């Protein structure tokens, strides 16, 4: 009953918004306000920004989203695909609603480069998109230079990261399925900062959960470059001890320096070489290629520094960067939830700047991150972040936020509700 009523309400909302988008869509080409925003990257940050620039400009600003993928695939929950309790279909959402309900123009292509003087984005397949303001949300790319062996032909198809949900998630699951019982899955974690701090530790739980059902003699070996677990440490360690004793082994201070792909061997700065049945290597990460190529990665040529009131780059005018690509503020995680918050803060600022108003001088937003330690049980971490006008950055609000007291099934249900809701807020 409940579901039916919500469905009917949803239809009503979709219908009215759709009609609105249609009329303003007709008006926007010749008689909209003529302002153009281009968004590069349709993940949690970019898709949210595209939707909210349309909404908050009363569908007056023309928004083009450049995203080569045929649909949005969520990194959050993708570890459950590796564990075998979710499918790719469960974590995939089409871009249709951004187009139909919100009148976002979607160009299924890669952004090749930016010409900031001409204010155009050059597309890989040819052609240019002019912009008044550009929003870049390209996520992360990998610093392969630190792992010379990964340059060998075929290396990147054999040793997977699975850190951008999609084809690699499927391929890594297949490697786990093909692994004989008694094998070792070795997961290498880079020094922080990297995308999704608790993600690797959740992955270890999910793979161990699968092994405990299907291949009970197999092991999960976590080789962490960091001194200790970087997020929800006591909760993960408790889960490993209580649920996966004898399956998961955690080894900190293991900084990976190379991979011998032919022999499936990891090579570390200080520790002995380690051979395993399936290698899962998360290389060190930096801002997405387009951001680095465009001179936006001002922090160690790795991350993009921004004005936290607007997300405008400190290096290039009229270009805004958000999501995992930015040089984070203190205690701000590189998470999908955070990227969605960046998207809305940036969208509000872009609309204000393009229509001659002051951007919000006091952004406040939060992060909530759920990790599955089993197919059902979840632990969370939360935080609230507020702009500090003196320090000109976002700071965590003292006394707010925290973690679960223990893994529990109720939060498992909330984690799935979180996913449904953030996917809708980002894409529907």
């Amino acid at each position, binding site marked *: 009953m409940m579901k039916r009523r919500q469905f009917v*309400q949803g239809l009503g909302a979709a219908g009215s918004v759709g009609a609105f988008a249609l009329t303003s869509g007709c008006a926007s080409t010749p008689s909209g306000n003529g302002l153009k925003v281009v968004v590069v990257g349709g993940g949690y940050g970019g898709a949210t920004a595209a939707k909210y620039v349309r909404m908050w400009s009363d569908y007056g600003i023309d928004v083009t989203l450049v995203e080569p993928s045929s649909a949005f695939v969520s990194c959050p929950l993708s570890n459950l695909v590796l564990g075998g309790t979710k499918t790719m279909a469960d974590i995939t959402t089409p871009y249709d609603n951004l187009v139909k309900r919100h009148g976002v123009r979607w160009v299924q292509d890669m952004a090749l480069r930016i010409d900031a003087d001409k204010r155009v984005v050059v597309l890989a397949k040819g052609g240019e998109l002019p912009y008044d303001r550009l929003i870049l949300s390209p996520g992360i790319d990998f610093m392969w230079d630190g792992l010379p062996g990964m340059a060998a032909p075929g290396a990147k198809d054999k040793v997977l990261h699975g850190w951008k949900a999609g084809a690699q998630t499927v391929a890594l699951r297949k490697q786990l399925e093909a692994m004989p019982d008694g094998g070792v899955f070795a997961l290498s974690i880079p020094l922080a900062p990297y995308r999704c701090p608790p993600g690797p530790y959740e992955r270890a739980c999910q793979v161990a959960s699968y092994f405990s059902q299907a291949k009970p003699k197999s092991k999960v070996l976590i080789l962490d470059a960091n001194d200790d677990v970087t997020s929800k440490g006591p909760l993960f360690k408790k889960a490993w001890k209580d649920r996966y004793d004898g399956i998961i082994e955690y080894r900190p201070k293991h900084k990976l320096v190379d991979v011998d792909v032919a022999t499936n061997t990891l090579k570390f700065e200080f520790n002995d070489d380690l051979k395993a049945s399936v290698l899962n290597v998360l290389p060190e990460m930096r801002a997405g290629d387009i951001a680095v190529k465009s001179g936006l990665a001002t922090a160690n040529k790795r991350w993009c520094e921004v004005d936290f009131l607007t997300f405008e780059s400190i290096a290039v005018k009229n270009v805004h960067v958000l999501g995992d690509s930015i040089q984070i503020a203190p205690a701000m995680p590189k998470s999908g939830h955070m990227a969605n918050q960046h998207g809305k803060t940036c969208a509000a600022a872009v609309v204000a700047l393009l229509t001659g*108003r002051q951007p919000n001088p006091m952004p*406040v937003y939060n992060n909530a991150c759920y990790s599955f330690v089993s197919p059902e049980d979840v632990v*969370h971490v939360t935080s609230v972040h507020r702009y500090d006008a003196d320090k000109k950055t976002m700071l965590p609000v003292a*006394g707010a936020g925290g973690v679960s007291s223990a893994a529990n099934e109720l939060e498992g249900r*909330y984690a799935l509700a979180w996913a449904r809701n953030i996917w809708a807020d980002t894409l529907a």
Partner: protein
Amino acid sequence: MKWNVRIAASALAVIAGSSYAQTMDPLQLRSLAASCSNCHGTLGVAEAGNESLAGANKDEMLKKMLDFKTGKKPATIMHQLSKGYTDEQLAALAGYFSSLKK
């Protein structure tokens, strides 16, 4: 007990009626409210599994938020998140969401 209830009620009235809640810039309030929509839906209309905030009763919503904040009302995460917002911001949020269509 009765006194406590009266004190709580008058505190609510003071917060809800504060100049901050009434004069907060509407666009700033819209952005503040959008920080809730990751979990509670765009414009406060949630997907299944989480509570919609659109069209909520203003006083009830504010009381609930303040009870989360003081720890009087147990929660999985809202007791932690509500502490990141001032009482005035919570009052403004309650006013905002109560004015939205369900």
